Structures are given as structure tokens and as C-alpha cells.
């Protein structure tokens, strides 16, 4: 029982971290051009997102 006091907040925090990362990447426009991203990964010259 006692360890739950730590484990549950830790689990929620980690999940929240993932959620935050997703929302950040969404806001950052990383899902704006999924088709293009698939091609760009093969282009050596392009290393600049956004």
C-alpha cells in the first residue's frame, strides 16, 4: 500500500510527460506534413525541421 503513494504519481507523471511531448510536437507543426516527412528522411541534405 505504501509504495502506491509513490508509484501512482510516478506513473501519472510519466504518462503526462508523454502527453505533453505529443501536444508539444503537435503545436510545433510536426504532423503538418506526414507525406513529406516520409520522403525527407531519405534526403541527405535536409536536416532542418520547420
Amino acid at each position: 500500500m505504501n509504495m502506491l503513494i509513490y508509484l501512482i504519481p510516478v506513473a501519472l507523471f510519466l504518462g503526462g510527460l508523454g502527453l505533453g511531448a505529443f501536444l508539444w510536437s503537435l503545436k510545433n507543426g510536426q504532423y503538418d506534413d506526414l507525406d513529406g516527412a516520409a520522403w525527407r528522411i531519405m534526403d541527405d541534405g535536409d536536416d532542418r525541421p520547420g
Partner: protein
Amino acid sequence: MTCCAPGSEGQVVGSAPSSEELMLASRDLGEGRRQIDLSVPGVHCGACITSIEKALKSLGSVDRARVNLSTRRVSIVWRQVVDQILVDPAEFIDAIAEATGYEAYLFDMSLDDGDRLQRELVRAVAVCGFAAANIMLLSVSVWSGADAATRDMFHWISALIAAPALIYGGRFFYVSAWSVLKRGRTNMDVPIALAITLSYAVSLWETMHHGEHAWFDATVSLLFFLLIGRTLDHIMRDRARAAISGLARLSPRGAMVVAADGSREYRPVEDVRPGDRVAVALGERIPVDGVVEIGASDLDVSIVTGESLPQAVVVGDAVHAGTLNLTGPLVILVRAAAKDSFLAEVIALMEVAEGAKAGYRRLADRAAQYYSPAVHLLALTAFFSWGFAGGDWKRAMLIAISVLIITCPCALGLAVPVVQVVAAGRLFKNGIMVKDGSAMERLAQADSVLFDKTGTLTLGRPRIVNGADIPSPVLGLAAGLAAFSRHPLSRAICWVASGPFPVFDDVVEIPGSGLEGRRPDGMYRLGNRRFACGDENSPGDADLEVVLARDGHEIVRIRFEDALRRDAVATIAALQNDGMALGLVSGDRPGPVKALATDLGIAAWQAATSPKGKADYCASLFAAGHRVLMVGDGINDAPALAAAHVSMAPATAADIGRQAADFVFMHESLRAVTLAIEVSRRAGRLIRQNFALAIGYNVIAVPIALCGYATPLIAAVAMSTSSIIVVVNALRLNRQRAEPLMSDAATILPDPAKQVRAA
């Protein structure tokens, strides 16, 4: 990667926007920098991205160039002044055309609002997914035996996680449910809103009283699945809309107004008043309706009226907005403001036609119409019968809620959008864009097809018929003259002839007649017979033919025909095999229309039809009980496209035609029509299967809930399983492969095999 470059220079869609137009459309970012977003509908692979970005960045003025392959757009940030010289944005378009051969266009930024809603929906899905996953973990612990204080704590934590998710993700359903309830009706969102609210409230009450069961997990995962369906539905509509509005704009957004003192000013087209004088250069589209005041020219009116031959205009003739000025500069006296033009008339006709069509209700809505009252009734019955029978009103409430949760249209909510998104994705890969899901439902019902001629069955672009009979030096002579003109017949000659061409001096273009040029051995003329040979008795420009003459003596006669769209013959045959009734309506003259109808074997044809006539014809077919698919491209087709049960337009269509159409196809091939019909029908079948699955699930699950055996675990498992089954079934659409269309994007090359006499 050679998929892009070759041949794409053949794509002739109106004229590129002018520098003034581009400046008008760009945004000022401050510090002397501007940004413009251009639409390049031809972009379709990695090589295109690289070559466009490289070409733009190699221009000294460009700070940033980024191609978005999903929306087929390029956004360019550039410095306005480089080395004290003002940068001309038209050079970006030239650079793109040079690097890839694709044309770039402006598009309407005002249509971008849908993007915001999409992001909100995706965010809501993410939040609800996070909440659902965490609550489910806690619930599993409860189900596996946590009890007393631990269970209470888990329930409390679940409640804390669920509350914000419910508000954040549920608002879409609450708002929608409230707006229909206000008007005294119900839709699918009402039982959803009711179920999630009630189940949350009761779960909270249970938690406070140390109850054994709570429904937080079911509440949130229900919301999660429904939001996925909602998001998919929205993304599909939005993506198609962005792609459609991103294509060529055929109505100019500004006009060069000439003031009384001769000064010129470029103004947005809305600010042009009747009485203004507007200068229209060669190759520009006429921005407003008016009368020619100075000059003479030939106009390409095919996109406006469907007439395939260029029309000669002289001083005093009326001209319509949207027509392309081919052979001479004009000054036009504006007769009507943009909002009162011919185009505005067509838009008014379209609105009338769309109003008549609005009766169609989407399949999901029709299902909801019966489903949601039934669900409410069922839950209410369960509540009262358990209450009166057992006397335990709390238990009755719990059972009523589990009925609501189990019957909640989770699978139904996914059944339609998932199939439609998969189908739209498949069509998109084949160059067909779908405006919304109901378009596919309507296309599956179509039993007759109505075609427009110019630009739809034919490409509206003339090709030489007797090229093989003409010696190549003679053709070279003609091409040497034709190179000076933008007239479609001249371009067709240049297209066929191989250089180098002989050089002419003093070439002049006489609008409505042809070209005249001098060489040491005499005066050459290329144009209609009356002009070239000085023969006053000849019928003039009634035929698609051009005569090359030296000093009034005919050297050669070049005949033309309108090139048939690729696979037109095969498509017509396939449609006839399918039992579809076919028809042809065109604004063109009866001669060419009849010839084409006979060649293709279409019995029902109408020529010289006005926009209103086309729309009326559609309406009369509809009144006779036919579900009409209209395929057309011009401004004059727009009312008919709106009036038809479902409609399709090629990407080269006029702006307004594309907006009116439910489907837009990018490729030259007409096989898009049969492919769209086939995929739509299959999607319709899968949707019906999904409905059957969802209803079958309810038939099993509802009695369990009614009998009071639906613990939260059973509700959650049943709901997820039904959703997953529905999704998996929808994905079957991808597995069965239809024959793919060719992958050469928007390239339009003349096809030597199939052509048809146009005159």
C-alpha cells in the same frame, strides 16, 4: 526519380498570377520580409520537394522555402529588397516551373480555418487517450482484487483524471447535443452526452459511498473512441477541401485599373467599380464583366461557356470575367462590379440548386434518427422496470446507465467515418479527392452519368489531325510564325513541329484573323482562309483549321481536332456495361457535340445549353427518379454540378466548378470516374456490414445489461471489442486492390491513340 519532370510543361491551365497579384496575396512579416504560400498541385514525391526547395533557395532573396507534400503547398519567406532592388515574387513561380515543370498558383487563405478545429480534436483525442489508459490501469487493479481503502483511492484518482478529460474532450458532444436539443430534436450526440455525464455522476456517487463498481474507465474510453471517429471524419473533409481550394484559381484577384490621366493602379477585384477602365494584357484572364473599349483580341471562352473555338472580340463587344485574353491587349470599360457579374449569376443559380439538394441526410444521421430514441427508451424502461420490480432504485439507476453505456453508438460512431476515411485515402492515392463522406454515399447510388464536353470528355486543347501529311520544313515555317502567338492553335503547331524554326521579321498578330510575317522570299500569313488567302467568300473561322499562305497563295492547310481525354472511350464503355444511363450536355455548338456523342455512342446529347439549361436538365432527370452523377469542369457547369445528386470535376476545372463538385480528379484519365464509383460502392457495402456488426453486438450485449449482469469490466471489454472489429473490417477496403490509375500526377500529355473530330 524521373517521375516528375518530363512532359509536365504540357500542362496549360490559364495564366500564372502576376507580380502585383502575388504581392497582394503575401503577408508582411516585418523587417522587410514577406511570406507567401503557393499551391503546387503537381508535387507528389521526394524529388519534387528537393528540387523545388533547392531552386527557391538558390534565389538570393529567399530566406526560407518549405514544401508541404500533404497539402501540396510551398511556403516562401523572402527579403523584399536585395541589393537595393525590389524582388519580384513572380520569379518564384518561374523558378518552380524551371526546376520541375509544375505551375504554381495562389490559393484562398480564408479557407484555412478548418485546421484549427482539427488540431483541437487531435488534442482532445490525445488527452482522452491518456486519461483512458491511466484509468484503465487503475481499473484493472480494482478488478484483480483491490478492495476497501485501496479501491476507494483508485476510484478517487480515476475520478480526478476523468473529470478534466470529460470536460476537455466531451465539449464537442455537449455543444452539438445542446444545439439540437434546443431545437427540439435529437442526434447521435445526445445519448453520448447523456451517457458520459450520467455514468460519471453515478460513479462519483458510488465512490463517495465506498461502492464496489465505478464506470470511470467506460466513460472515458467511450469518449476516446468517439473522438477518434469524429477526428477521422473531420480530417478527411478538411484534407480534401484544402487540396481542392489549393488548385488553380481561374478568376483573377486583382485588376489593373487605368485612371483618366493614364496612371495605372493594381486593385483587388472587389474594389473595381462600374465605369472604371481595366487594362488586360496578353495571356491574362479578364477580371470583370465589361465592354471592350480599346483593342481587339481572341478570347478563350471554353471555361466559361464550354465553346471550344476562341472567340474574336472587337471594340463594343461584351466580355465575361474568367475568359482568357489570347491575342491582343485590351482596355475594358467595366459594366458591373465583381459581385454583379455573370459569375455572380452562376453562383446564385448554384445556391438555388444546392438548396434543392439539401434534403439528403448522411447515413450516420439517418441511423441516429432511429437509434437514439430507441436507446433512451430502452434505458428508461430498464430503470422503471427494475425500480418497480425490485424496489431498489439505486440498482435500477446503475442498470439503466450500463444499458446506456453498452448501447452507446461507439461502434456506430466509428463504423461510418473509418470506412470513409480508408476509402477517401485510397481515392486520394489515385488522384481523386473527395469533399466529404456523404459524397461517397451518394455516388454509390448514382444510376446515370451526365458529361460535359469541352474540358471534361475532351481536353479542350486542339491537336493537329493531318500532321503526317505535312512535310516538316513546311510545318517548321508555320511554327516559326506560330511561336509568336498564344492562340491555342498556334501552340498546337509549335508543340508538334521540331526546331529550329525559320526566322520571320515584322511579325504582327491580327486578332480574329491570324499572324503575318515577312521573309526574304515573300509575305507569309498564318490564320483563317479569309485572312491568309484574301478569299472573302470562305466561311472564315467556323472550322478548326489554319492556312499557311505566301503572298496570298495557300501552301498548306492544317486541320485540328479537340483531343479526347485519356481512357474516355474505355470509361464510357465500362459505364454502359454497368447499366448506367449516359448523357452529354455542352455549351458548345451542335456540330462538334453531335460528332463526339456519335463517336462515343452516347444517344442523349444537348448542345448550346446555358448554365441554367444544364441545371434544369439535371433537375428534370432527378424528378424522373434518376440519381445523376454530373461530370463537368466549366463555370457554366457549376449550377449543374450543384444540382446533380453527386458531381465530379477534373482538377483543371474553373475554381467555382471545383468548389461545386463532390469529387475532383487530378489525373488526365477519365478512369477516375469508374474508380470512384467502384470504391464508393465497396465503401457502402462495408458501412452496411459495420452497421450489421454494431447492431449484432447490441443484440448480444443489451440483454446482458438489461438483466443486470453488466459489470464495468464486461461493459469496457464489449465496447472495445465491437469498436476494434468495426475498424478491422473497414481496413479490408485497402486489401482488395483495384487496378491503380497511372501515377503521373497532374501531367497532361497529348495521347496519340485516342482523338475525336471536333468539327
